[in-house]
């Protein structure tokens, strides 16, 4: 083949590739625009109702904005007063209680409910329905119901305790009993997680247990080394949803106790909508966000060590 012809061939090939590239590029651009168009409702909402407010909140947290006068820059003043506010300390403590006591206890209870249902081979459908029933109640309705149950004078709970001759506490108005009272309500509603655990437990392959028993493994060993790892994805899911719910715990506590016992979110609510301290409450919100991210981040990273997914 002569040099001139191969030269031409090369140039033709290059031109064709460029043309294909251009067409491919415009094809990619078109697909990009189509994709963007389809997700535009979400994207618009994200920018205007999530990202925008978050950035605004960050800005306001460095000001003293209180809806009445224009915001003035105050630097880190809000953050400093946040960490020196005893009310915040108690709100933070209450939220920690929710996260590190209520959530794990709820998780354990749901697991136990699930295991019991799994053990009871017959009638699972009925047990499942009954256990799930409390979580069907709207949060406000159940808060109102429990407020009535916890009534110090006429409530059912204190009546039951008096039958057993146990001195009955004042429950929702007694600072020592407020949080356990809320925890009992949480345990009452743990059925929805329990149903997920039941589904997961039923999915564990029996062969694993049989093989282990052939090797002489004890029941406890089988539970820790087989059951737990096999259901770990569901544990993870319930743990994360429980944590996120716990951090934002608000309406039930609010309706049952009012805003005197504060959780983080009640603290923000009070400062924002009662005191109109928008700058300060923005600072509190951002600290909450950072805290949540760290916590959720830790749980996510820890997956590598204890959550087993089917390949």
């Amino acid at each position, binding site marked *: 083949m002569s040099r001139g012809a191969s030269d031409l061939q090369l140039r033709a090939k290059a031109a064709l590739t460029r043309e294909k590239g251009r067409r491919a590029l415009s094809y990619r651009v078109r697909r990009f625009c*189509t*994709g963007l168009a389809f997700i535009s409702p979400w994207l618009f909402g994200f920018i205007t109702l999530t990202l925008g407010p978050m950035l605004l909140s960050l800005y306001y947290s460095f000001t003293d904005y209180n809806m009445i006068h224009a915001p003035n820059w105050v630097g880190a003043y809000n953050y400093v007063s946040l960490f020196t506010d005893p009310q915040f300390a108690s709100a933070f403590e209450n939220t920690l209680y929710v996260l590190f006591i209520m959530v794990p206890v709820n998780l354990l209870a749901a697991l136990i409910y699930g295991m019991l*249902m799994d*053990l*009871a081979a017959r009638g699972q459908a009925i047990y499942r329905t009954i256990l799930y029933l409390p979580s069907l109640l709207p949060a406000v*309705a159940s808060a109102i119901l429990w407020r009535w149950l916890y009534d110090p004078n006429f409530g059912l709970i204190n009546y039951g305790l008096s039958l057993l001759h146990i001195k009955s506490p004042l429950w929702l108005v007694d600072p020592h009993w407020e949080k356990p009272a809320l925890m009992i309500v949480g345990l009452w509603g743990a059925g929805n997680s329990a149903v997920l655990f039941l589904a997961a437990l039923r999915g564990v392959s029996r062969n694993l247990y049989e093989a282990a*028993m052939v090797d002489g493994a004890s029941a406890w060993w089988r539970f820790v080394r087989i059951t737990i790892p096999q259901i770990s994805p569901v544990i993870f899911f319930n743990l994360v949803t429980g944590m996120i719910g716990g951090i*934002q715990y608000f309406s039930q506590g609010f*309706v049952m106790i009012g805003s005197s016992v504060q959780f983080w979110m009640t603290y923000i609510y009070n400062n924002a909508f009662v005191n109109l301290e928008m700058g300060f409450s923005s600072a509190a919100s951002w600290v909450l*966000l950072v805290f949540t991210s760290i916590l959720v981040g830790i749980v996510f990273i820890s997956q590598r060590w204890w959550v087993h997914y089917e390949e």
Partner: protein
Amino acid sequence: MKNRSAVTRIGQRMGIGAIASHALLVLICISLLLPLYWMLVTALRPTSELSQFPPHLLPDHLAWRNFVDAVQQIPFFLYMKNSAFLAVINVVGSMLSAVIVAYGFSKLQWHGRNVFFGILIVTMFLPGVVTMVPTYIIYHDIHWIGTYLPLTVPSFFASAFNVFLLRQFYRTIPESLSESARMDGASEWRILWRIIVPLSKPAIVAVVIFTFIGNWDDFTGPLIYLQNQHMYTMPIGLYDFIENKGGTLWNQLMAASLMFMVPMLLAFFFGQSAFVKGGIRTTGIK
């Protein structure tokens, strides 16, 4: 032996027989049902019996008129109407927006799609509290406070959870169906509405049910954005009744709560089969 679940066999080795677990479960069920039973009983108690101590397990008279009184004491029908109005708009908005957005995240291949989806996932874990304050300020500046707009318009922007649910479901639909439609010259919009949506009914019903239940139950939103009592929804109305109107007539309150719960229970039981199919299948739980 073959059909026993695994934990049963462990349990037998551990000495906790099926009988003991049944006993425990029955105990648990009774304690879970007791509050619900009490709610029912209290709703039917005549006011005179409310303060009797010790309370009787069954009321001496069945006061059906509590239901009638409750409806008159608080603006029951007004609040129910408001709740229903908001619920319907939110259901329509979230359904439409989630169907469309989820399509963009699953059935279309485009540059940067996964980046945006990653952002969406992250927002699912965001505590809503962070945006609560500045969103209020924004709404205040555009004069939306005190209207239903902050409680309805956002539903048209597709919540991350609904999009995630639908997207997972769409991914189970074979790509070949869309491919052959594309070869016939159909636009993506047509493919979505003519092919994907009819096949996604269980997941869409799940979205509708979740949205309805979440909205019916919503307390914080109306608490922050509504100021006029005429616009209150049931959760706020009930709370307002206890706190501000000196309403501690627990029997009427229970009656009102029960009536309030009925649509939610109906929605749940009605959508249960679709619920399970759409929900469990897409969260990857076996």
